[in-house]
């Protein structure tokens, strides 16, 4: 049985009632792991509270941070400061320079692009080639597909169709996430997979983008953040106690 993951649930962190409702709803919809974007200044107490809410709802929690830097330099600075504090790091690329830097940096997990401004979606073949080498994934949020209508949704669908084809060609993992800011924008994994067929993503591929691909990223990062991690394939098995 697949373990479905929603790496981008987007409730207002200040409103704990809404956070709790959305986490419970995620669990009901069949997700086993949710990622919630947190501000970089979040305290350990707040993270522990979120973990507790998730544990009560019988769902796993992933601490995620989103950056939208204006320059590649700003991105590098953010990565140096915050990479080790969060399990998932996503970069919203608003310029080509940032997009290229994010795609080639192995510390970036997810590349995200603005849904409403099609001219700022820089996921082309060059970007995919860099992302493929750095093991970054392309994140597709479904909330804009639900909330947009008319010509803006048509343009977004057309763009997503192109991006998914490029990602497939260059073996870039695609991660489908909800991006839901309220309960009305939340759907079950199979419903999202059905919606993904609108941009020519076959059902099995879409279900993979909702389960195996995001899960692999989370597990890889959890291993990296573990104190026993040394390098890929190398980990501390036992420590010698020196007296």
């Amino acid at each position, binding site marked *: 049985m697949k373990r479905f993951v929603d790496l981008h649930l987007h409730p207002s962190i200040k409103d704990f009632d809404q956070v709790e409702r959305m986490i419970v709803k995620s669990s009901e*919809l069949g997700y086993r792991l949710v990622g919630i974007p947190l501000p970089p200044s979040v305290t350990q107490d707040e993270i522990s509270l979120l973990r507790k809410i998730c544990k009560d709802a019988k769902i796993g929690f992933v601490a995620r941070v989103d950056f939208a830097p204006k320059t590649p330099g700003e991105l590098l600075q953010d990565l140096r400061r915050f990479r080790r504090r969060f399990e998932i790091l996503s970069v919203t690329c608003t310029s080509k320079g940032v997009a290229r830097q994010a795609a080639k940096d192995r510390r970036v997990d997810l590349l995200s692009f603005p849904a409403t401004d099609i001219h700022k979606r820089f996921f082309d073949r060059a970007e995919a080639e860099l992302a493929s080498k750095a093991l970054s994934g392309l994140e597709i949020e479904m909330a804009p*597909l*639900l*909330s947009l*209508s008319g010509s803006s949704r048509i343009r977004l669908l057309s763009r997503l169709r192109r991006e998914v084809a490029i990602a497939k060609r260059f073996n870039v993992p695609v991660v489908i996430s909800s991006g839901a800011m*309220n*309960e*009305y*924008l*939340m*759907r*079950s994994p*199979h*419903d*999202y997979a*059905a*919606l993904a*067929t*609108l941009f020519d993503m076959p*059902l099995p591929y879409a279900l993979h983008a909702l389960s195996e691909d995001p899960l692999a990223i989370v597990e890889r990062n959890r291993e990296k953040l573990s104190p026993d991690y040394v390098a890929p394939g190398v980990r501390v098995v036992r420590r010698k106690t020196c007296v």
Partner: protein
Amino acid sequence: MSRHVRRRYLALKIVSEQPVNGGDIMDAVWKAVVQLFGEYGASQAGLSLIECNSQKNYAIVRCSHTAADMVRASVVSITEIKEKPAAIHVLGVSGTLRALRKKALLQG
């Protein structure tokens, strides 16, 4: 010689701020199908409402089996009913009503 028509039944769960009836649900579904696939696509869907329970907030709709994916994608894209925020979740899809009720744990 009559040709057997293959159909699909979809069990839907409606989440809305206000009570909705079968007509409201079908209006929203038709609107979504037309918006996403146009009138030509909608004409191939063979959509009809089979059952609606306003108290338990669920409904069963029938469509042509070739249009099941199209109808599911359209139903999922609904974000409002009667101009109020709403969501429709697909509880199950099946070829017979009996199997659907069993699958979606609905008591007909």
